[in-house]
């Protein structure tokens, strides 16, 4: 289905009694380093039918707040303050009393749908159990209601699928089931903790629609916890911004985006990469990292990162104050900011992106991929494996990459982008096609010594810096290891490690620390430094920013841009976040089901996407601006990416294509039977797309 209407804006009653009131909620956990004060005095009201978005970075206390409301914190947590649900206080109730409320008056949707459902029960059983906990229903009646709920949240063939187990569903479908469970007993409050973070962007739009439907269906107030300001812009009525365990700004969505008043909010909005608009605006990194919540110093916790902090900010923590026409803001200088006499972002100069003209146009070709093919056999049987099918992970993918250039591979999970990356890094003859690195065809390399030599030219930066760095090695050893592997002597290794640390903007003093003692941004810098150790020509980056907080991302984006300029590197970036890709890529290749469906210069693709899939993908990204987000036309793709084991004979996108649905019979026939060949856009030779219908 293509939904080309603006988002419906619910008109909630403004004078109703709040369904949920939180007053001065405080949560702390004991830890080895001391007491972690995760939530430090949070207060808000939620009106029926309205949506309150809680935004913040990891560690800001937003999930702890949700768990505290639900009574799902671990027993070691210390919980104080007041949570009133329809007038009834929840704090201090024992587990038995709370269990009568959970699932009945409050429903919860969790972040990771892959692990949120008990694997050994069918989804119908899970749903009917959730109903029978609070309602006196026969098994049969509960099952019937479960089927109705599955139908409501958009599971096709609900009666048949009710007997299926969670592992037989995709992530998006599982999240629909979790939403169905949360709304089963018509709660008056729904709490959704990052409900779409683990999902693809096209599925995210569908799930948010289901969540909105669940809210309309039950009339519940929704607490939506997210780090994505685009989601906030599209779905919130009110926004609470959390930082270091407190709500630092609480305002209506229009007011907040129109005039962010707390300097943190303002800086956060300035640092979010966006996909809309004609030009990229430069990102202004906030600098520093969010504070640890153990033994917080006096004063405003944001003061060390704030551009407009006064001395008074460092001695006393400001209480939230009401500002007329805005909301509550915890900042000493809020009045100056709200009347426009002070710019909350300060005079921090935007760190400019390299001008497009500065791109090394005539760099040599570092990587050439021609008709790359990778398949995986599907087997069946315990003892004797029979081949029952073939999974076409990568299908005739071609591109080349020059020195000083960045190519972004984008697409939903399962589109084959990571497989492409891994095939290149394998440095062996691919299953089909050719891979050429610095002019050497990897299929022709005979000796393993030559492979090792070539490996110095190609290095990898991984997604999760904590998982990618050995926790038992210091930063020095982590960086020295690749140097020893290529036979550098002790003295030059030491010098090179120092050089690398300076290169990625780290202080010499981190070299004897372990990865666990570093912050997320520092770890990713170490990961990049390690990849640079052998002076590679090509850097493969697998989701290099997705594990980082928004306020830290910008710094790493700028670092990558600088390194490319200074060292003449070529980057091959795999990412699912198109906004981020826009900021680091010169060219983009959009992948769908193992095929490149469109490729071209970044700005050409963002300003004039040709392929219907690219358009849908771009349209699915929420824009952090409530006015535009709620009025723009959206293309919401129905369904999910099909299984790569059963390839369509014609165009791979045909099942979900909005153009196909509108096409005439002759074109439809071509779409179904002939795979489209890449054609160049008329005005730009580098811009190619594979579609019959455009």
């Amino acid at each position, binding site marked *: 289905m293509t939904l080309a209407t603006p988002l419906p804006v619910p008109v909630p009653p403004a004078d109703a009694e709040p369904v949920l009131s939180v007053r001065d909620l405080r949560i702390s956990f004991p830890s080895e380093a001391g007491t972690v004060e995760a939530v430090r005095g949070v207060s808000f009201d939620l009106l029926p039918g309205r949506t309150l978005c809680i935004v913040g970075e990891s560690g800001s206390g937003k999930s702890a707040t949700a768990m505290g409301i639900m009574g*799902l914190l671990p027993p070691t947590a210390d919980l104080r303050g007041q949570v009133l649900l329809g007038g009834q206080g929840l704090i201090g109730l024992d587990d038995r009393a709370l269990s*009568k409320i959970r699932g009945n008056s409050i429903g919860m949707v969790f972040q990771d749908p892959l692990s*949120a459902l008990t694997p050994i029960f069918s989804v119908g059983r899970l749903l009917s159990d959730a109903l029978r906990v609070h309602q006196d229903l026969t098994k049969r009646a509960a099952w019937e209601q479960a089927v109705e709920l599955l139908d409501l949240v958009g599971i096709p063939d609900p009666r048949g699928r009710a007997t299926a*187990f969670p592992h037989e569903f995709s992530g998006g479908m599982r999240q629909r089931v979790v939403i169905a469970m949360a709304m089963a007993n018509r709660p008056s409050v729904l709490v959704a903790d990052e409900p779409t973070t683990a999902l693809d962007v096209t599925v995210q739009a569908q799930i948010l629609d289901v969540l909105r439907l669940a809210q309309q269906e039950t009339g519940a107030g929704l607490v939506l916890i997210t780090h994505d300001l685009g989601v906030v812009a599209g779905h919130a009525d009110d926004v609470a911004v959390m930082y270091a365990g407190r709500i630092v700004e609480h305002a209506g969505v229009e007011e907040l985006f129109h005039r962010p008043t707390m300097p943190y909010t303002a800086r956060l909005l300035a640092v979010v990469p966006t996909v809309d608009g004609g030009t990229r605006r430069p990102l202004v990194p906030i600098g520093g990292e969010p504070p640890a919540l153990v033994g917080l110093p006096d004063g405003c916790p944001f003061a060390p990162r704030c551009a407009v902090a006064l001395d008074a900010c460092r001695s006393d923590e400001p209480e939230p104050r009401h500002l007329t026409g805005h909301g509550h803001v915890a900042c000493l200088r809020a009045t100056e900011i709200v009347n426009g006499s002070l710019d909350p972002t300060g005079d921090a100069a935007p760190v400019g992106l390299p001008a497009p003209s500065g791109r090394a146009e005539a760099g040599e070709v570092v990587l050439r991929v021609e008709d790359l093919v990778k398949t995986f056999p599907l087997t069946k049987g315990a003892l004797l494996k029979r081949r029952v099918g073939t999974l076409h992970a990568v299908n005739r993918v071609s591109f080349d990459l020059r020195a000083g250039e960045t190519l972004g591979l984008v697409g939903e999970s399962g589109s084959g982008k990571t497989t492409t990356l891994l095939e290149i890094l394998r440095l062996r003859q691919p299953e089909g096609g050719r891979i050429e690195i610095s002019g050497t065809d990897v299929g022709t390399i005979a000796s393993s010594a030559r492979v090792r030599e070539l490996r110095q030219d190609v290095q990898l930066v991984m997604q999760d810096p904590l998982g990618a760095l050995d926790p038992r090695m210091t930063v020095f050893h982590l960086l020295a290891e690749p140097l020893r592997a290529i036979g550098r002597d002790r003295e030059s290794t030491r010098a090179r490690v120092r050089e690398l640390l300076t290169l990625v903007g780290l202080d010499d003093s981190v070299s004897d620390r372990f990865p666990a003692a570093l912050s997320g941004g520092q770890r990713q810098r170490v990961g990049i430094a390690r990849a640079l150790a052998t002076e590679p020509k090509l850097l493969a980056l697998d989701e290099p920013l997705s594990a980082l907080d928004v306020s830290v991302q910008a710094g790493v984006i700028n670092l990558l841009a600088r390194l490319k300029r200074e060292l003449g590197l070529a980057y091959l970036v795999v990412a699912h976040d198109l906004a981020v890709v826009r900021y680091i890529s010169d060219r983009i290749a959009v992948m769908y089901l193992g095929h490149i469906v469109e490729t071209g210069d970044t700005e050409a693709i963002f300003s004039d996407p040709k392929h219907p899939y690219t358009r849908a993908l771009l349209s699915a990204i929420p824009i952090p601006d409530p006015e535009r987000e709620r009025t723009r036309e959206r293309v919401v793709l129905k369904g999910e990416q099909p299984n790569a084991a059963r390839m369509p004979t014609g165009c791979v996108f045909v099942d979900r294509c909005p153009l196909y649905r509108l096409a005439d019979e002759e074109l439809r026939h071509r779409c179904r039977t002939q795979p489209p060949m890449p054609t160049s856009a008329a005005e730009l030779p580098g811009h190619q797309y594979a579609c019959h219908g455009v």
Partner: protein
Amino acid sequence: MCGEGVPRVVRYVTRKAVGWLLMIVVATNATYFLASWFLDPRSNFKELRPVRSESQIDRALAPYNLDPRVPLVHRWWDWLTSVSLHFDWGKSPTGVSVNGEVGYRALVSAELVVVATVLSVVIGVALGVYTAARQYGWADRVSQAVSIVVFNLPTSVAALAVVFVAIWLNQHAGLHFLYVAGENSPGVEGLLPMIGDRLLHLILPTLTLTLMGYVGYHLTQRSLLLDTLHADFVRTAQATGLTRSQAIRRHALRAALIPTAASVAFSVPAVFTGAVITETIFGWNGMGRYFIQTISKNDVHGAVATAAFAAALTAIGAILADIATVFLDPRVRVS
């Protein structure tokens, strides 16, 4: 769903049972050849006075199909036909029927093992669940310390300790029902008094076996449950309105029980034939002691029958484990 499930389970069990039967046949026959090569019944007669001649010994062994002058293949064939046609497992070198011995001792062992195994599993799993839900609480720390001490205690020490405590209790508290030796008291008449008497004799050895058995289940169940306890789906179950302990029982425990069910099923044969020390200390004539005796007395037929018995128990255990897994995890399709 359930309607078609039952015949499918029957078919599945039948197929498995046939496979295991084949395995038992192969294992038993292999044991026969091994036992015949390594056990020499003639040596039983070497120390007898007056000294027997070779031919006298061989003649004495001949009626029991143990005559070393007959080729091994012939003896094997005779043994095999008598086992498969009459289910007669032969005789010991002194002429005692193996069937009678095994039949009696298996019953004795069953008395010991069944109660002790059930108790070990129930106590071990219950403790594991209770302590996992209270990880690092005082109950967890204390019970874990106790379990680790018991785990490192040799059976003989534990059994003797139980005996001493029982004697002390008998003496000081005036109790007289804690029997420290034997399966029954001589001279008890009538069915009900006999059963009662046997049960009283069972208390201490069962206690010892339970003590030695529960520890493993406690420690493994605790760590298995800890793995699933913090899973997201347990939190989801709580969010639908279950209390923490209900969510643990219904959602976490079931998945965590699967490995335990398999290990219980497979431990049954080991317990049956491995309770040697307990049997010896408490003077019970069970399968464990019989197994040792047959080997030390060069009783080829007895040793083979014990091996066959253990193989059969293993097969039963494996099939029970499969059934338990299918029952606990409905995702496993029987096919």
